């Protein structure tokens, strides 16, 4: 249930009537169909849906990494026409630079934007500490575990101090138990440094654990099937009755993967 009025100052990201098609020699594939949504400041929104339904495409459109076929995306009321440092991204594949240290990766954005060495070192060290990697500033990426790598990805995205953090299934490549750890960690990090977050997952427990609001998408072409505000107090309990009932309700309502 959306409680925002249109164009409220609280809205950080908004899209109206977004449609996205991909055209190739084999024809046209419609991936997104008439999606309109708003994300409020410091809200942790989860895009949830069956595999291959278009969640990543939607995120790419919202973050400016890709353009919509129809409709418009707004960031603080201004039209989004491309990627920008105000919209940070964390990828499932992490996409870290193996030739740089942890600090090199995390400081990359600010350094590229012209901050001086003192400034970007201070910034990056702050975020490296925030994600729990203090002491690993000079480690190389291949020396880190999967969970640690993803922490670097998160620190790197945060370090650019974006308005919005987009996270595309950031924990899907991790083993189940590290995944639980990272769910707790992202909640700890986010509550320490509040940001607006748009988070993609296809794991219902993960969705209910982290979200302020879950936007349930249909199968491809994706439309919004339903929105679920999640009012449970944090830290959440995976085995509480309320958690399990929500998990049950939402997963029953999800389209089956084609």
């Amino acid at each position, binding site marked *: 249930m959306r409680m925002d009025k249109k164009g409220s100052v609280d809205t950080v990201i908004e899209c109206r009537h977004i449609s996205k098609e991909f055209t190739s020699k084999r024809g046209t594939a419609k991936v997104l169909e008439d999606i309109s949504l708003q994300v409020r400041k410091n809200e942790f929104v989860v895009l949830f849906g069956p595999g291959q339904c278009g969640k990543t495409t939607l995120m790419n459109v919202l973050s400016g990494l890709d353009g919509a076929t129809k409709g418009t995306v707004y960031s603080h009321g201004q039209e989004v026409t491309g990627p920008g440092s105000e919209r940070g991204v964390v990828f499932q594949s992490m996409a870290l630079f193996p030739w740089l240290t942890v600090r090199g990766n995390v400081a990359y954005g600010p350094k590229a934007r012209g901050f001086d060495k003192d400034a970007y070192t201070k910034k990056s060290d702050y975020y490296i500490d925030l994600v729990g990697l203090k002491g690993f500033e000079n480690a190389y990426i291949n020396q880190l575990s999967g969970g640690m790598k993803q922490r670097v990805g998160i620190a790197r995205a945060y370090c650019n101090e974006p308005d919005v953090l987009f996270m595309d299934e950031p924990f899907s490549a991790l083993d189940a138990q*590290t995944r639980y750890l990272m769910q*707790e960690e992202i909640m700890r990090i986010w509550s320490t440094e509040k940001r607006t977050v748009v988070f993609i997952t296809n794991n219902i427990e993960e969705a209910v654990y982290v979200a302020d609001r879950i936007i349930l998408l249909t199968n491809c072409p994706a439309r919004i099937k339903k929105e679920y505000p999640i009012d449970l107090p944090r830290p959440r309990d995976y*085995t509480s009755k309320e958690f*399990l*009932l929500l*998990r*049950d309700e939402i*997963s029953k309502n999800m389209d*089956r*993967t084609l």
Partner: protein
Amino acid sequence: MAMDERRVKVRVSNLYKQFGDLKVLDNISFDVLEGEFLCVVGPTGCGKTTFLNSVTKLYEPTSGEILVNGEPVDLKKNNISYIFQEQSTMEWYTVEQNIEYGLRIKGIPKAERRIAVDEVLEMVGLKDYRKYYPRELSASMVQRVVIGRAFATKPELLLMDEPYGQLDIELRFKLEDELISLWQRTGTTVIFITHNIEEAVYLSEHILVLTNKPSTIKRKITNNLPRPRNVIDPDFIQLRNEVTELIKWW
């Protein structure tokens, strides 16, 4: 509580497994009763798959022994089926050819194979799909082919390594129910590895909790919850939390 009068099906005694310097299994001993459903849980990377591979002799133990029906496990004598973590249907065979495969290898004559395959297709609900290829099926149907193939040889021991890990919850619950139903019908002994504690509590009669490498048995828990089990039931949740506490490192 009634004494469990079932015979010992599998006896693992002082199982050690080492790869070079890496000690994975450290003095593991336990029994599995005939027709029992045992789940094995533990921290990631603790050696659960290594353990299963030792039972099937895919790995030779460094020392210790594994007895099935009182004798050292012998793949020629013992009827053991193994379901892997990775998807393992043979893409170039149809559903019924996949299911028939083990029977063919064992040299079962054609007429008997036909009957067994029909029975299995019925059990896993894939009768109408017998001529389909795995790529034409949904993920859950593919898993059913794998399960069907495993049950087709009427195994005395069924080993399963996290077969439902990647599936969404609705699907998992459905497949778990089907597995329980198949297990109850056939009386097979099952050793089932999972990282999912809820799944372990849902399926098991006993839960073996392993420690980190080098793994030993931290605890063996008896699961007396009545079936069909309900994941929202307070007793279910209590057991789930208890087991989670035992393996939680995060």
